[in-house]
């Protein structure tokens, strides 16, 4: 039987196995799988690992996650309160940075792996590795230097600081976030994560103007990737569009995978990458809540038909909201397996 890992490796290499790799990013759904409240579920790494394995077996997609929720990164850096909802992702409630004076006080843990907040994540990762390591890619999520401050002080105050200054405080915060980024990514890699999702909304021209991207975002992206190395890294704009920047990022960093936003044009993305890197196209999974199964099938077909020619292609979701009914998840995956089939022909 072909494994998810073989499908992913083949896609990176431009080779063909039975079908394209299909990523389905289910996070909060794990709590329901184990009949737990979200807060209980996320308090134990073994629960997350168990649910990730179960959900992969149940639906048949190709990846699992060691990400609990993005706000965890703020916990590594001193956040003391996360707001848990009954029916949606946890959010940072206690900001680590409340004034400019807090920036020099920001402490970057010496050894991220030894940090208590990382303990459960590492536990989850080691179980995943033991149970399915090498068969199904384990994904980790790492927020880029330039996006991390949004988790520490909120998007509004970070936009103020980033665009209106003072420049000294901004550079200092970015440097500290960069230091943390490199340690975190290295820790994930050493612990056995295969796919390192490099999340950077500020690396999308939906969020910043092209001029700012070139002058400010790109140098920090280069710095991040030069320090951590591009192996296993996949570039992700947080579901914002990345087509306009992919070629530059590829040329300057050597990153080999690009996780596009649902509003990126797939065919255009493939042309931009021109076989140099893996194109990961995504479905709009917020609309997946209310689309009918027939509509879902049509949407999946449209995406895969646009992206399949030439190979080096992956179909995926963003972060699946809890409200998506199970039959819709199944309809999406069945369509992706069917239209993404490579039996009887090499995609290139």
């Amino acid at each position, binding site marked *: 039987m072909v494994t998810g890992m073989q499908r992913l490796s083949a896609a990176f290499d431009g080779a063909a196995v039975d079908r394209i790799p299909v990523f389905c990013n289910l996070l909060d759904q794990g709590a329901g799988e184990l009949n737990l409240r979200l807060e209980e579920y996320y308090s134990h790494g073994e629960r997350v690992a168990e649910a990730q394995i179960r959900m992969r077996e149940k639906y048949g997609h190709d990846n699992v996650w060691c990400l609990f929720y993005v706000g965890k990164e703020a916990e590594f850096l001193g956040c003391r309160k996360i707001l848990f909802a009954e029916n949606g992702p946890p*959010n940072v409630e206690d900001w680590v940075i409340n004034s400019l004076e807090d920036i020099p006080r920001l402490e970057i843990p010496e050894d991220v792996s030894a940090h208590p907040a990382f303990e459960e994540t590492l536990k989850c990762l080691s179980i995943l590795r033991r149970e399915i390591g090498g068969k199904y890619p384990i994904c980790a999520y790492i927020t880029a230097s330039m996006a991390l401050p949004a988790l520490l002080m909120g*998007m509004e105050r970070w936009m103020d600081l980033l665009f209106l200054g003072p420049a000294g405080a901004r550079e200092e915060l970015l440097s500290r976030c960069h230091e943390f980024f490199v340690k975190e990514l290295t820790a994930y890699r050493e612990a056995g994560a295969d796919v390192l999702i490099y999340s950077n909304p500020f690396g999308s021209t939906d969020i910043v103007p092209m001029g700012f991207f070139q002058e400010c975002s790109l140098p920090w992206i280069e710095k991040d990737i030069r320090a951590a190395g591009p192996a296993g890294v996949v570039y992700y704009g947080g579901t914002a569009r990345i087509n306009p920047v992919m070629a530059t990022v590829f040329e300057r960093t050597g990153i080999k995978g690009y996780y596009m936003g649902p509003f990126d044009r797939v065919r255009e993305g493939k042309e931009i990458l021109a076989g140099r890197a893996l194109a990961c196209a995504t479905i709009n999974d917020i609309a997946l809540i209310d689309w009918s199964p027939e509509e879902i099938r049509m949407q999946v077909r449209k995406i895969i038909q646009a992206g399949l020619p030439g190979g080096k292609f992956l179909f995926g979701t963003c972060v699946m909201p809890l409200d998506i009914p199970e039959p819709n998840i199944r309809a999406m995956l069945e369509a992706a397996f069917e239209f993404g089939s490579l039996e009887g022909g090499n995609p290139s």
Partner: protein
Amino acid sequence: MNLPPLLSLFSEALFDTDRDRALQLVRDAIHQGAAAEELIFEVVIPALEKCVTDLEECEELNLAQHFLTSQIAADVTEELLPRFRVAPETVGRVVIGSPHGDLHTLGKRIVVGCLRPRMIECADLGVNVSAERFVEEAENRRASVIAISAMMVHTARSEKGCLKVRDILRERGLEDRIKVIIGGAPFRFDDQLHQRVGADGWAPDGIQAVKAISRLIREARPW
């Protein structure tokens, strides 16, 4: 005062997100005898709308530029308001906030920034606002519109959010006086979603929000 050249200079400053230049331009104009009223209505508002609409048309509207232009327009308005010869007449009142369970603030700040030059009075109720409070504050302030900024799917669709605001308005017979508008990331991903949560309108950005809110203010029965 010859406003068209100023309009194009001010538009340029906005487009370049140069706050200092924008402020200097209106200060110089005031110095040369321009009226605060004409500066707002004939320079600030058209420039803000043109900048955002132009960017939108070439699919280049990005968050940072939208945030900065609305912020500069709001700051310039703040500086000009005390100089009005007659106290500016409020066009309508709005209460705005993020709903139950939602801590995001940036969306409503942009919307408030765009409403400010339009003389629409806007009370910011903050984050994690309960449906009851939205309605109470709107009633107390005799607001015509409740504006809700929801950034996540579960807060956008929640029984405790917009849907409940609608229920309370219905129970209290306030639906003709208070209209509900909603916005935030999930609504940009699903342009039908506003109907499912019982809102009277929605908008994908700050400029469209002003248009939709102005329409709702006109539709609401005056207090």
